[in-house]
């Protein structure tokens, strides 16, 4: 129901504002002096470090009142509140209640939209010239229709080049700079190395013709530009990359994380660049340098694959998102919109042209517009201010001409990283080397290694993980095999103690055969019994959920381990593997809401879901050939 016109909105507003050249002016600004760190508390504890790495869970996609599309749904909480919430403290919610996570996160990056960041909020401040804009009264109204129609007017003005008549551009620039300072200061204030990590970050909201090309930009440290590079300046990813490349030469590292490829109309993982030119090796290198990670699951659905593209994957129909963002125009399930098909496209390019632009790792996140990450199905507090703030609002949500029903949303996903310590450097570096996994919201921990000569009894060894690192590669890595050998895979998954037991672990394989991409899924570990070698599937499970109480029926496994060989490995073909860990069914958030309200779960939506984790892939190549 709303907040999504933000994409059209912002996309066009931005292009409108560009006409003024006002925003492009800021690129010439010199780098800001690094923000002084707040006074450090005396700490006698060294930062806990594990060379074999721990799994840390976080969210790299959260919006606060500084984002216009959060502000117009009455979110008034700020980055400070977002960090408090992530640390496990209660914060205000649009419904008037306070909200609180059942467990704190290990890290958080607040990613407000860089486009007119802080401007909507400033319109409510009488001492700010922006509050004198004609549009200010409507933007700051607490009536849903009023704020959203005002937002549409802002967008329309932007796209017709008349934004300057509506907003004092010059005043807006000043407001944006100080809002960005607030973002920086909140991140600095809440960073506790070893305990809780914050990232200075923002969202670059590019959506040409309503095709979602959004990226979240994450800075490794505190040395950041004085104003973020917004899609107001350019909506081409290649221009964002140039900005990132320039910034790296002046400061610390920075990367961009695409999300919602499911709403990109096939453009996120296209086969040509923004000018329509086919890729080359340089493009592939730039893409992987700047975008080593992709957000595969969040409020607006999962982007792994679609049943139309993966008809042999019984679990492919998971939290599908089937419209554009900010509208109700349906999108077709095309390969350029999904992660799995992107990996396959990458392999085909590897085989044909010798380069691969799609070797990214995976994370999940939320995309909350409430300064919160509502990850728990059983404790879902919505993600879009007054559009989905209570169970009543959510269950009675209807699509409008501008947006889809709240019922189509998922509860948030999570980013999982394997890092030596809970610090900015360690977690950022994990994103860079792709030793990460995404979940649909549970805290499943999963290890995934590949090696040429893992022993069969590796899982039983006390130092299994150490051996795996020594003689193989972890998720996100490239395995180079000597000729005449085949890869052996070690998977180890641990359930989330507060969610359901594990049902199975699968390995998803992609390869190229006679110039065409192929995929196959192998169950490699089952909660009950073992996979049937003929079908590659676990025995049917009777595990389910009692829909009156949401109690699981059936235990599921506390952990699952497997040593696996690919029965069809062919060294001559480019090939990629990733692991998918699936839980037993649990109630979807919509069912929890229905139970609390004493009504039936909404028709047309699944009553239960199987939460899952996806690891970053491992690419395997044999010395003699296959890429």
């Amino acid at each position, binding site marked *: 129901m709303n907040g999504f016109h933000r994409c059209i909105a912002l996309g066009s507003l931005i292009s409108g504002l560009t006409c003024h050249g006002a925003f492009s002016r800021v690129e010439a600004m010199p780098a800001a002096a690094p923000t002084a760190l707040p006074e450090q*508390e005396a700490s006698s504890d060294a930062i806990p470090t594990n060379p074999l790495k721990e799994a840390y869970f976080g969210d790299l996609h959260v919006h606060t009142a500084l984002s216009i599309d959060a502000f117009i749904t009455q979110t008034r909480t700020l980055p400070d509140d977002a960090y408090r919430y992530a640390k496990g403290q209660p914060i205000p919610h649009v419904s008037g209640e306070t909200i609180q996570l059942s467990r704190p996160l290990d890290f958080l990056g607040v990613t407000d939209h860089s486009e007119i960041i802080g401007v909507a909020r400033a319109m409510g401040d009488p001492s700010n010239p922006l509050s004198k804009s004609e549009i200010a009264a*409507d933007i700051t109204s607490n009536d849903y229709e009023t704020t959203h129609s005002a937002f549409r007017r802002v967008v329309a003005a932007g796209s017709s080049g008349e934004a300057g008549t509506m907003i004092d551009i010059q005043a807006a620039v*000043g407001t944006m700079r100080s809002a960005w300072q607030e973002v920086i200061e909140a991140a600095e*204030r809440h960073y506790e190395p070893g305990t809780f990590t914050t990232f200075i970050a923002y969202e670059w909201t590019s959506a040409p013709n309503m095709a979602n090309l959004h990226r979240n930009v994450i800075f490794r440290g505190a040395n950041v530009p004085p104003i973020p590079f917004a899609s107001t300046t350019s909506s081409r990813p290649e221009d964002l990359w140039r900005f990132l490349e320039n910034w790296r030469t002046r400061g610390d590292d920075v990367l961009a994380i695409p999300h919602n490829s499911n709403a990109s109309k096939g453009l996120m993982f296209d086969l040509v660049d923004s000018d329509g030119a086919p890729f080359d090796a340089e493009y592939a290198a730039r893409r992987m340098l700047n975008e080593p990670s992709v957000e595969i699951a969040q409020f607006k659905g999962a982007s792994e694959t679609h049943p139309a593209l993966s008809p042999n994957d019984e679990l492919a129909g998971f939290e599908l998102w089937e419209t554009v963002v900010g509208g109700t125009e349906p999108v077709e399930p095309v390969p350029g919109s999904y992660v799995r098909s992107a990996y396959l496209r990458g392999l085909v390019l590897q085989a044909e042209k010798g380069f691969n632009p799609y070797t990214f790792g995976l994370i999940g996140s939320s995309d909350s517009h409430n300064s919160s990450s509502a990850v728990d199905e059983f404790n879902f507090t919505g993600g879009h201010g007054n559009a989905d703030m209570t169970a009543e609002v959510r269950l009675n949500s209807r699509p409008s001409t501008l947006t889809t029903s709240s019922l189509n949303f998922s509860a948030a996903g999570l980013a999982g990283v394997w890092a030596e310590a809970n610090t900015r450097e360690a977690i950022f570096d994990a994103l860079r080397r792709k030793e990460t996994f995404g979940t649909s919201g549970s805290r499943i921990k999963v290890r995934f290694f590949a090696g040429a000569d893992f022993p069969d009894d590796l*899982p039983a060894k006390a130092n299994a993980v150490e051996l795996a690192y020594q003689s193989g590669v972890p998720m996100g890595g490239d395995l180079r095999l000597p000729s005449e050998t085949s890869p052996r895979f070690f998977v180890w998954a*641990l359930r989330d*103690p507060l969610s359901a037991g594990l049902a199975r672990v699968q390995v998803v394989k992609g390869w190229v055969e006679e110039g065409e991409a192929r995929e196959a899924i192998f169950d490699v570990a089952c909660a009950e019994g073992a996979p049937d070698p003929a079908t590659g599937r676990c025995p049917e499970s009777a595990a389910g959920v009692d829909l009156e109480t949401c109690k699981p029926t059936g235990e599921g496994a*506390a952990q699952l381990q497997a040593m696996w060989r690919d029965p069809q490995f062919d060294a001559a073909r480019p090939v990629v593997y990733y692991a998918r860990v699936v839980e037993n069914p649990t109630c979807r958030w919509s069912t929890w809401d229905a139970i609390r309200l004493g009504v039936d779960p909404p028709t047309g939506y699944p009553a239960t879901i199987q939460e899952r984790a996806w690891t970053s892939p491992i690419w395997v190549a044999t010395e003699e050939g296959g890429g």
Partner: protein
Amino acid sequence: MKRSILRSPLTHVLALGALLAVAILIVHGPPTGDDETRRVVITGSDLIQLRAAFARTWQREPTETELRGELQKLIREEVLYREALARGYDRDDVVVRRAMQRKMEFLAESQGLRQPPSDEEIQAYFALRRERYSLPVELSFVQIYFSRDARGQGVEGDALASLEELRRIDPDPDALVEWGDRIMLDTVYLDQTEQQVRSAFGDEFCAGILALEPGSWQGPVRSGYGLHLVKVLARQDSRLPEWTEVRSRVLADMEFEAAGAAREQLFQEIAQNYRVVFDSDVRRLLETVDG
């Protein structure tokens, strides 16, 4: 004599004047003094204010063209404002009301923390709210896991048998990896808060080990994963830190509270000058809520 007064030109003039006055009164109505509200006077001091406001935003003086532009905006603003008042929008319009309310709240918030508090003030706040800053219980323990998946019904029996042996042998932490079943958990956990234990093992385990006496092997304790045998090595009870250890947290909380308190205080001060009166319908509603 009477006849001559009535006929005197002075009388005629006065009478005519009175008639004219009555006519004007009838046609134009009584003099209202509203004419003043429709007269907008711009002076040199307004220009000074416009210049200053411009310079604050732009960090430079306006050009003449720009100043003329600001002037036009000012006139427009003033005229529309007066007209809005004349139409009673300050009383009747929802949007205007809300903006005025927000203005009051901004006023309050700016009364909040005017400057960074002194160390004494921070200490005082900390003393007042010390429970909030108490450091949580910290546990150090070792654990051994027994898998129901692997052992089936016999898992509890296995755990209890191992418990006897553990008590007898009391192995070093390093040797513990040989006991029980493999799981993606550590054997040794040091200085873990309740939150951390809960996160790693679930509620049941956390509650279970909080109740254990340190120093000996106990169990089995159930977790989201299965059964565990646990020896609590050390337990640091909840303690209050020194204010210096949590200084920046206290400061952040002070700012947060000050803004809210300032809003509340301003409202209370103002509300004292107002008397809220209910009619019988409203009283009935309030009574049913309380009753």
